[in-house]
């Protein structure tokens, strides 16, 4: 086995690890990282297999796979950035880091103050958000400002809220 085949096999392992992680981890951030590991494995396979057609004079590998990997890296970077931006937005809207089908029924809406307009205010806006199904919150964007039960908007008095990640939201 040549060294380059070894690199290609390492790429296969990376691809498989990323694939498994993509399926098995419910968190979106981990899924994004898993996709990056998968693409790294793919790039490794491509550039190592480019060595199979070396230049007879300079021994340089096939340039076409190299150019494809170069452009693939760019797609990977931009897709990652966009995925992270989506994740941040989703987290701000729902306070969750997993998609609804992977998510736990974190808080029971019947037992928690859900922040209805007539009901008592929720203990914190994070509770009010996580008590609702995330997609419902996304659809009703922006939530009406009803006392302390909805998310603080810029016009309201500053209240400190701790989101599930432990991050303070002024």
């Amino acid at each position, binding site marked *: 086995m*040549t060294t380059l*085949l070894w690199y*290609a*096999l390492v790429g*296969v*392992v990376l*691809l*498989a690890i990323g*694939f498994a992680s993509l*399926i*098995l*981890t419910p*968190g979106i951030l981990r899924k994004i990282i898993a996709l990056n590991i998968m693409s790294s494995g793919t790039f490794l396979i491509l550039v190592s*297999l*480019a060595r*199979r*057609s*070396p*230049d007879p004079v300079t021994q*340089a590998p*096939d*340039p*076409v796979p190299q*150019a494809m990997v*170069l*452009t693939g*890296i*760019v797609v990977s*970077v*931009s897709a990652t*950035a*966009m995925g*992270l*931006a989506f994740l*941040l*937005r989703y987290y*701000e809207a729902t*306070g969750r880091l*997993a998609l609804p089908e992977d998510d*736990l029924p*974190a*808080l029971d809406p019947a037992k928690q103050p859900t922040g209805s307009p007539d009901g008592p*205010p929720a*203990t*914190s806006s*994070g509770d009010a958000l996580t008590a609702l199904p995330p997609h419902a919150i996304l659809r009703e*964007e922006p939530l009406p400002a009803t006392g*302390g039960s909805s*998310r603080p*908007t810029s016009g309201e008095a500053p*209240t*400190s*809220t*701790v*989101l*599930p990640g*432990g*991050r303070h*939201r*002024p």
Partner: protein
Amino acid sequence: MDPTRGAPRQIPPGADPTGEGRAPSLLVRLLTGVGVTAFGVLLAWAILSLPPTAPGLLHEVREHLPRSGTKSMVTAVLINFRGYDTLLELTVLLIAVLGVFVIRQGSRVPEPPPMPLGPLAREFIRVLAPFLVIFAGYLLWAGGEHPGGAFQAGAILGALGILLRLGGALPDRAWGVLTERLVLTIGIFTFAAAGLACLAWGETFLTFPPAHAGAMILLIEATGTLAIGLILVLLFVGGSLAGTPPATPRPTPEAEP
């Protein structure tokens, strides 16, 4: 008003504290393990059963290299032979950065202030910045003969912008809206204009005439470097850095694309 104000939220029993959802069931894990292992073994077997050498596309590239306007085979493939690919690549980058702008625009959580770096790190960035600019320029120029080119040089410029951002030298509203939009799109515009100019020489779109190919590739790569660098910085920042500067005069940031 808020009883939990200032204190971490109580995680009720049964809820996951990380907010990352539930782990899949044992059956799903087993099936995934078997399936992914089979996939990996199949792919490894496919790779191992390949013949050790393959004709590849190297000979075609070598054959047409003298007419491509560059001595680097990768650059020739990237800009000339597969020009469509790279042009749309720049479009992907632009769409991604515009998407990030749109997604982050409705954000209600203000960005955390940049971490104050120590004096040593700031001084290091100050010393490093001009060398990174030179390095990016060298990579761009070297792309004509050796590995290098717009993407590598743009990555260096992007790294420089991220360093400046982390060091506090690249504030919000660092430049004008028009400047930012111009630099963001200059790579695509130049590439497309060069492709259209080929029509004037009687060629098809993006078929560079050999007499002018070298200059056109250099122009495309130079403008592409600026655009890629700025796009990478803005993807890192997660939003636009354009805007009218505040009333108080700021020290002008380092020259950025």
